């Protein structure tokens, strides 16, 4: 089964990026190519989603690149989880690029902005689709190369400093991942993820090294996702990069880290058995080691992100810290999924992870782009300098309000379901432990308390952003600045989308349900890849 639709999003982004580079002497044409290419990308993703999830004969699709059969060639796998992440990416990318055309300075757009954007998209897409661990590393690098340029894009000293930090950290992270991947190859004898899943499930594989090596890889994934203690690059990089690209960072590239954790631990190592004695976690798989680590990472991210956002005095910094906190919520949900052995609870927790990831991408995308509108209008995002914008542009204020309320988690917006499902999972985790295991129950209570604290902090800093920007007396810059109505219109449609995801939640839920199903379906994943040829 070699259906070209599985590789179509990658080809689309690659082709668009190259074409945009070729026509760079014609800026208008370049913008058209870039936007049209991104729309085409969205269409291919939609087709892929239809084929994998919603069609009557829906099934996961594998693609053996260059006719080299698995496990020797590079396999691309489009299953529920991959296409769910691709959908998030596509939506954010379309909004980011359309907004860029309007927002980024005309001369800056000519400096390779569009080709770079397409290659960033290409990197994220490849990471979501690949079924090969080393290839995942390669796509990470593709994504990073463009991210470096974007962080240094404006070229001032602060941007260069942020970029240097970002480059150094990610090169170290990349080295860790390379070590981990190389070690896993030495241990299991394969790089193909499906083949690796088969190998570690079979008895007789030495599991000790796999645990340690996967921890090395986890470091890189956590770095990419911006989880505490690897979060410190996030605020400066987010403040330095152009805001539409920051929307992409928050919406797509951070999610690559989350996706990689889910894919590697739940899909690939999910069936591996090894005797464990982690207190409070009654599991006999590798997930028992992941659970405490990622729970602690997630909880500290929530706390650090929340308090950081509260103490930030600029809007983009506030949202950058908020982004750390929100990723913390996602990580906690992954931790709950890893800590349990009950299939149903694991499913609910993964579902919560995915819904929250979707909500975060949409909402945070909306808020970062809204920050862009403010910067465009008044030239600053310092909370002290803006104020009273609500009076000046009520329409823009309501768009921002939708984003803020969704971030807080008010029904019926997208954010409500994300938060609701995570609390649901945490509650169930507590209920499962309440009779008997004291340590488990205590840790579940701690998780619940931190989640509650995180929710309260979210309300506090969202309120702070809202009051500081839209209420109060109008400052001088607000009085003289003009809010770009086309930018607001673009954001308005995104706000409507956030509302629609909440109101028409049923298909979204169904989609995420399939994705969460696919995340733990190791056998299905292995079967999709279809080891062909003599290698099987």
């Amino acid at each position, binding site marked *: 089964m*070699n259906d*070209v639709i599985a590789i179509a999003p990658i080809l689309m982004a690659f082709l668009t990026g*190259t074409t945009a580079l*070729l026509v760079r002497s014609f800026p208008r044409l370049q913008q058209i190519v870039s936007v049209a290419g991104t729309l085409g990308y969205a269409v291919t993703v939609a087709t892929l989603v239809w084929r994998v999830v919603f069609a009557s004969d829906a099934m996961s699709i594998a*693609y053996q690149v260059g006719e080299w059969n698995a496990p020797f060639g590079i396999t691309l796998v489009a299953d529920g989880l991959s296409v769910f992440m691709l959908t998030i990416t596509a939506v954010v990318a379309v909004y980011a690029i359309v907004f860029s055309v309007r927002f980024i300075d005309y001369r800056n757009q000519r400096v390779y902005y569009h080709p770079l954007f397409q290659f960033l998209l290409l990197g994220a897409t490849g990471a979501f689709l690949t079924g090969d661990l080393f290839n995942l590393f390669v796509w990470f690098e593709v994504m990073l190369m463009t991210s470096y340029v974007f962080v240094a894009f404006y070229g001032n000293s602060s941007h260069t400093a942020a970029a240097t930090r970002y480059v150094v950290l990610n090169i170290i992270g990349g080295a860790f991942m390379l070590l981990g991947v190389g070690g896993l190859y030495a241990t299991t004898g394969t790089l193909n993820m499906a083949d690796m899943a088969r190998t570690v499930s079979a008895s007789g594989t030495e599991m000790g090294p796999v645990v340690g090596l996967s921890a090395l890889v986890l470091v890189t994934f956590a770095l990419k996702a911006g989880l505490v203690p690897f979060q410190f690059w996030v605020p400066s990089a987010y403040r330095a990069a152009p805001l539409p690209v920051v929307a992409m960072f928050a919406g797509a590239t951070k999610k690559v880290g989350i996706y990689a954790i889910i894919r590697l631990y739940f899909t690939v190592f999910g069936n591996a058995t090894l005797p464990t004695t982690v207190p409070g976690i009654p599991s006999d798989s590798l997930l028992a080691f992941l659970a405490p680590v990622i729970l602690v990472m997630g909880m500290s991210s929530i706390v650090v992100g929340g308090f950081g956002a509260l103490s930030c005095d600029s809007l983009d910094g506030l949202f950058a810290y908020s982004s750390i906190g929100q990723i913390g919520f996602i990580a906690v949900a992954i931790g709950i999924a890893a800590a349990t052995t009950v299939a149903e609870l694991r499913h609910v927790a993964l579902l919560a992870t995915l819904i929250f990831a979707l909500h975060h991408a949409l909402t945070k995308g909306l808020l970062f782009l809204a920050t862009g509108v403010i910067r465009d209008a008044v030239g600053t995002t310092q909370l002290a300098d803006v104020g009273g914008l609500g009076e000046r542009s009520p329409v823009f204020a309501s768009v921002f309000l939708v984003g803020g309320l969704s971030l807080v988690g008010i029904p019926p917006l997208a954010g409500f379901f994300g938060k609701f499902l995570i609390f649901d999972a945490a509650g169930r985790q507590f209920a499962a432990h309440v009779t008997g295991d004291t340590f488990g129950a205590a840790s579940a209570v701690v998780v619940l308390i931190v989640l509650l604290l995180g929710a309260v902090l979210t309300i506090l800093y969202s309120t702070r952003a809202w009051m500081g920007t839209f209420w109060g007396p109008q400052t001088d810059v607000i009085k003289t600045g003009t809010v770009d109505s086309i930018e607001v219109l673009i954001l308005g449609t995104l706000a409507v989308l956030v509302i629609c995801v909440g109101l028409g939640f049923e298909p979204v839920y169904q989609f995420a349900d399939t994705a969460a199903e696919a995340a733990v379906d190791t056998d299905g994943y292995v079967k999709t890849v279809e080891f062909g040829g003599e290698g099987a």
Partner: protein
Amino acid sequence: MTTVMTRTTARVVVPIILVVAISLFLQGHSHPGGGFIGGVLTVAAFALIYIAYNLDYLEDGVLGREVEKEESIGEHRTVAAYRRLFMFGLVVLVASTFSGMLLGDPVLSQYHRSIHLPLFGEIELASALVFDVGIFCIVVGGLLTVFSVVGAE
């Protein structure tokens, strides 16, 4: 660094580096080597020339052209050529990627055929070499752009 010693060394070493680079490049599809490593070695040769002589040496020393003083290195004729080389490489990659698909095979499919040349013997023609040409051009174009621009500052 433009001492007689570096110049003499460069004069001897550069051709050797280039020959090794080409041989690594040509055997890439079936032996260790390939477009990337060949490209990096080629860049090393160029870097040596830049160190021993200067950035304009290629223009006035080799090609015998007048060097125009542009306002920024980004506009320099050599740098523009490097950038074009980079783009050309990318186009070759795209073409090589899609050609397999047009022939009804999966993306990135490669073909090869052995031909017999008089005197030379058996020779293998592989379409993977086209892909390698693309990578070679990207590496050489990209790295030399970086070298020239950073070196000029």
